[in-house]
């Protein structure tokens, strides 16, 4: 097939800018092509070879449609419960908008979904008429935060390679010379949520739920033991205590920084926190002061 005269002096960067514009800009293919032309002064016929059987527009569309579909699939894989809760069609609508507004700048697809919870929070509709409707608007971003945290916990540095000392009893913490610093495990994530997302996610995992979770401020700690996720509903003081151990810190110092902490309760809970790999005794670490 005869094509128009070949434009001269088109450089690598111009062709690549043109093609990327066609892939990542919003709109249908013809809107994308028009925008790419405006930005780079290149048209489809300037850039792409075609044959009678396989037109240039079909060729570029394989890349343009594949770009969106592939990234939507990646988000679905990272947020399966959210997709189940919202329904595939609604989820895809938000996912496509997110991909257009926030194109990936990450080497790995893992980074792609990092800002999706914030995106859902910023784009949630306003003007709910009742608590049920409000929950429908607010739960997606909360559920997304929970699923993103799970993904982070699975990939972060865990404690599996470390020797596991016997879990101390509450009494061991009473020892006057107990100044050994504790630290929160690197893979731990602590979430402050407005809905009871943990219980909701467990029921959503088992079945399709039309219900929405109960609205209630709550805290969830996520950790990993033997490469499996541990999710725990924790209290506000437990969340504060874990945060106090963000660096290697002796117990007495951590307690000093949390006036609301009940010492007896704390000592009873610490063995659980160690057993669930929320906290650990860092080895060969000097505290940064």
């Amino acid at each position: 097939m005869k094509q128009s005269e070949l434009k001269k002096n088109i450089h690598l960067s111009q062709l690549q800018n043109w093609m990327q514009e066609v892939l990542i800009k919003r709109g249908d293919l013809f809107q994308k092509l028009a925008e790419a032309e405006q930005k780079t002064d290149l048209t489809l016929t300037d850039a792409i070879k075609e044959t009678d059987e396989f037109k240039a527009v079909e060729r570029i569309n394989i890349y343009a449609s594949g770009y969106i579909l592939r990234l939507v699939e990646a988000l679905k894989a990272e947020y399966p419960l959210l997709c189940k809760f919202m329904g595939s069609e609604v989820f895809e609508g938000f996912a496509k908008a997110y991909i257009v507004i926030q194109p990936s700048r990450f080497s790995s697809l893992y980074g792609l979904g990092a800002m999706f919870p914030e995106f859902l929070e910023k784009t949630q509709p306003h003007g709910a008429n009742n608590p049920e409707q409000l929950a429908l608007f607010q739960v997606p971003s909360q559920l997304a935060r929970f699923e993103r945290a799970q993904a982070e916990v699975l990939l972060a540095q865990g404690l599996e390679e470390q020797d596991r000392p016997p879990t101390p009893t509450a009494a061991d913490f009473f020892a006057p010379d107990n100044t050994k610093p504790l630290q929160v495990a690197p893979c731990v994530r602590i979430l402050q949520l407005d809905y009871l997302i943990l219980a909701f996610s467990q029921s959503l995992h088992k079945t399709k739920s039309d219900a929405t979770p109960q609205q209630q401020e709550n805290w969830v700690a996520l950790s990993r033991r033997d490469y499996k996720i541990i999710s725990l509903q924790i209290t506000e003081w437990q969340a504060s205590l874990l945060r106090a151990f963000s660096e290697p810190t002796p117990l007495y110092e951590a307690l000093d920084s949390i006036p609301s902490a009940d010492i007896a309760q704390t000592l009873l809970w610490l063995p659980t926190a160690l057993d669930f790999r929320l906290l650990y005794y860092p080895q060969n670490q000097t505290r940064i002061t």
Partner: protein
Amino acid sequence: MPSYTQKGAANIAAPLQALHHDYLGFGIGLRSQHFPEIMSCETLPVDWFEIISENFIDNYGYARHVLKQLRNQCPIVMHGVSLNLGSSDPLNWDYLQKLKELSDYVEPAWISDHLCWTGVLGHNTHDLLPMPLTEESLSHVTKRVLQVQEFLGQPILLENPSTYLEFRQNEMAEWEFLAELTGLTDCLLLLDVNNVFVSSFNHGFDPKEYLQNIPHHRIQQVHLAGPTKAGNCLVDTHDQPVPAQVWELYGMLIEKTGPVSTLLEWDANIPSFYEVVAELNKARHFLENKHSLEMNSEKIMEASQALSTPVVQR
């Protein structure tokens, strides 16, 4: 290179004399879906594994644990999808640093990526986009391959991608571009036979001419996979058995190269580990001239819509 225990890599000896001293035998892509089966193997039924580098960079979870076990049992090669070698953007040194750190950990037999670009202006489309095959591109990619090889301290392998479009500005065939590039940089080739087949179908060139002319002594590794016919084109879906046409091209290639490290890719609708191994073993049989009529009659499946899978998520 790590020393391997007897648990794996038992089949590296090939029935024919390999031209390449780095011949590894037959491998598959390491995918998380297969971890339970792989970790319960007494003896690995494959000679080596290929990992997607990006799936292990910044990953300290179970996948890293599996990798740690496997790297002591058999050779591992690292295959990347984000080097963005052909991009007009500057090289991403943060990414390269992480790639090097992973390489120091894995001690791979080699590191590969693609003759492609994945994004410009800091973006990553997570797709392997076709290069304009021009003198300007050749000069640009040559400089970058040399920089990357110097940084990594070893030659890299470059793979020919599947493509669905060609630029009107192209001044040479892909095999010519790769032949020039390998000569200028001493880099090696990861020749994807399925990609040659897919691109030849989509652009109407002769795949046999491509395979005749590609520099055989530079081919260090081969990929095999199954594409999907979608409308008037073939799409590189990696979701089905290797079709007869690809086996024919593979047979033609190994006549030129001798035994070459061969990897089967299967990245969507992934069957069990042992089913993938069975498909890989067809390549072993091919090398031993045992290919059967059944293998040669594998048809390409069709779909109304197909999505290429160049980038595999962990």
